[in-house]
């Protein structure tokens, strides 16, 4: 169905979600909204890692740009909600383009470390200029749900609807981009810089473009995240968030967008699972330490045993039964360092 009528599938999925939102209790609705936000953030990171071979450990910084842009446009210009989201996308995309220009020259661990340093430096910037509201942050209030939706329509359901509408639109759009010429050239760049260059693909420009789009998506995720907590502050976009998104991307499988839900649901579910376990054994030590342990252990196990994510794994199994779909370009061990050494010459 997805292959033949992608648009219908997305609309159908949206309808299901709409039905679900009426059935869920409010805590789940809130968590559902968070899942949508994570899904966008993870998709943005997958686009970067899986489709252009770049990594960002400071993706939270790009989310922050989006969140702050949305909040500032709301506070100072009373922009309507949809416009704040557009502004979030544009602002983050600009930030991403600048970062991408620097990033295109870097690879693997260098890029990882640089984005990490950016994420660490971000709070100082928020503190440096009083317009950003410092550590305490700024409110981002999108207002109450429209009265036409009825009195029982809660704020979180409103967030849920907004987040999921945006998420579905973003994922649908991404799916189309991935199947376009750009998507193909990104994948080529990811597989092998040199081969792509030989095939006439402008590697640098492609990487910057991928970074820009990824940042734009991160921006809207940042604005939505700010919406669900109604605040932007450095603490809303901590290093932990960047790591969580990287975790979610790996759990989802970085080579395909198909798995984004797995990562985002897992991120929201893990603290719940840890809590359930802790309640069972009644230990505070478990409650405080187990979520971190679970996420990290899951991350390591995924990288070790399902490196390309569960969805890709499934495809691979299917492909083995039928005809093989392996790429002809053989990528030697540790692509990162290889491209690095070619860079150096």
């Amino acid at each position, binding site marked *: 169905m997805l292959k033949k009528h992608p648009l219908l599938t997305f609309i159908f999925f949206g309808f299901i979600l709409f039905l679900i939102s009426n059935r869920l209790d409010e805590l789940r609705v809130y968590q559902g909204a968070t899942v949508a936000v994570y899904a966008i953030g993870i998709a943005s990171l997958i686009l970067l*890692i*899986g*489709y252009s*071979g770049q*990594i960002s*450990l400071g993706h939270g910084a790009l989310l922050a740009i989006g969140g702050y842009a949305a909040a500032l446009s709301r506070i100072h210009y009373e922009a309507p909600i949809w416009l704040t989201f557009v502004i979030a996308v544009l602002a983050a995309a600009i930030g991403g383009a600048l970062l991408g220009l*620097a990033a295109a*020259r*870097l*690879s*693997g*661990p*260098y890029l*990882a*470390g*640089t984005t*990490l*340093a*950016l994420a*660490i*430096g971000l*709070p*100082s910037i928020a*503190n*440096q200029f009083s317009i950003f509201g410092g550590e305490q942050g700024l409110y981002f209030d999108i207002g109450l749900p429209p009265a036409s939706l009825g009195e029982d329509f809660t704020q979180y359901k409103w967030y849920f609807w907004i987040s999921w509408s945006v998420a579905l639109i973003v994922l649908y759009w991404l799916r189309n981009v991935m199947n376009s010429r750009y998507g193909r050239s990104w994948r080529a760049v*990811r*597989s092998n810089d040199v081969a792509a260059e030989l095939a006439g693909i402008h590697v640098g420009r492609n990487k910057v473009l991928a970074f820009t789009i990824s940042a734009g998506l991160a921006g809207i995720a940042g604005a939505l995240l700010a919406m669900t907590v109604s605040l932007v502050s450095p603490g809303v976009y901590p*290093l932990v968030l960047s*790591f969580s998104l*990287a*975790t979610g991307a*790996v759990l989802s499988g*970085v*080579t395909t967008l198909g798995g984004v839900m797995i990562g985002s649901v897992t991120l929201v579910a893990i603290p719940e699972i840890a809590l359930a376990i802790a309640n069972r054994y009644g230990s505070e*030590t478990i409650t*405080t*330490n*187990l979520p*971190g*342990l679970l996420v*990290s*252990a899951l*991350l*390591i196990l995924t*990288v*070790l*045993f399902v*490196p*390309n994510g569960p969805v890709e794994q499934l495809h691979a199994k299917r492909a083995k039964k039928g005809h093989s779909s392996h790429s002809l370009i053989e*990528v030697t*061990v*540790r*692509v*990162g*360092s290889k*491209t*690095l050494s070619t*860079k*150096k*010459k």
Partner: protein
Amino acid sequence: MNKLLEVFLIGISAASIYSLMAISMVLVWRSTRVVNFAQAGMALLSAYIGYELVSRTGNFWIALPLAMILGAAFSAFIEFFLMRTLLKHSSQGAIAAIAPIIATLGLLGVIRATIGFIWGHYDRQIEAPLSKVGFKIGENTIAMSPMSLFVLLFVIGLVIIVTIVFQKTNIGLALRASAYAPEIAQLAGIRVSGIRTLGWAIAGASGAAAGILQTVNGTGAISPESLEFSLLLVFGFIAAVIGGLESLPGAVLGAIILGMVLAVVQIYISGTLVFIVAFLLLLTVLILRPQGFLGTKAGRRA
């Protein structure tokens, strides 16, 4: 003039801490082409082990080498069980470039949670074995104490020993060959995987020293999410990259540049800017000289 000397001493003692971390990162990078983002976590674990050893033996000078040995063993263990499996399973596709980064991040989380389970979320203290009060020159107390001088000498000693090992011994030759060209080293009959584990072990020992010395030279306290160690990771990385990520003297040089620049910024400009300046420094070096100061193409220096 006096102030300038102070700035210099402050920069140097900060640099000695950064360089310990940078050296471990360089060692790991050279042996497996991986930046180990769990390095600070491993150093923190070593600091906790050092804390246990100090409280049990009551003697810092026994605890330090013991903790270094344990740090080496743990690091080798990680290479053997985690990194090798990783190379086997995720050596292809998009994940290959990021798998080591993600895995080491995961390792960082596991280490922190484990520390939380064992030691709880409270501060633990290691007493400094030497005086932290600065030496006196005439009337003035300078910003260099027996403790920080020890750290500085330790770093210098470490760099000299590691350099000699790398340049003058057969093991060193094997380490360098495996780093520069693993396949050729393999074809020359070197057990590259074993050599990689050895590289991690040395890095683990130096990381353990970094963890313990950073703690006693600083506040003396450690906690699972110790901010000091997060910063140590990032600043150690910046120092290593400035130096070129390939070269041990480069790591030290990078640390000195970073330490000095930050000391100058803090004392003459504004303490508010240290993080931004560190980030800009990293970015500038990466854009103008991506191979770092000492990371020449041949990159011969050990």
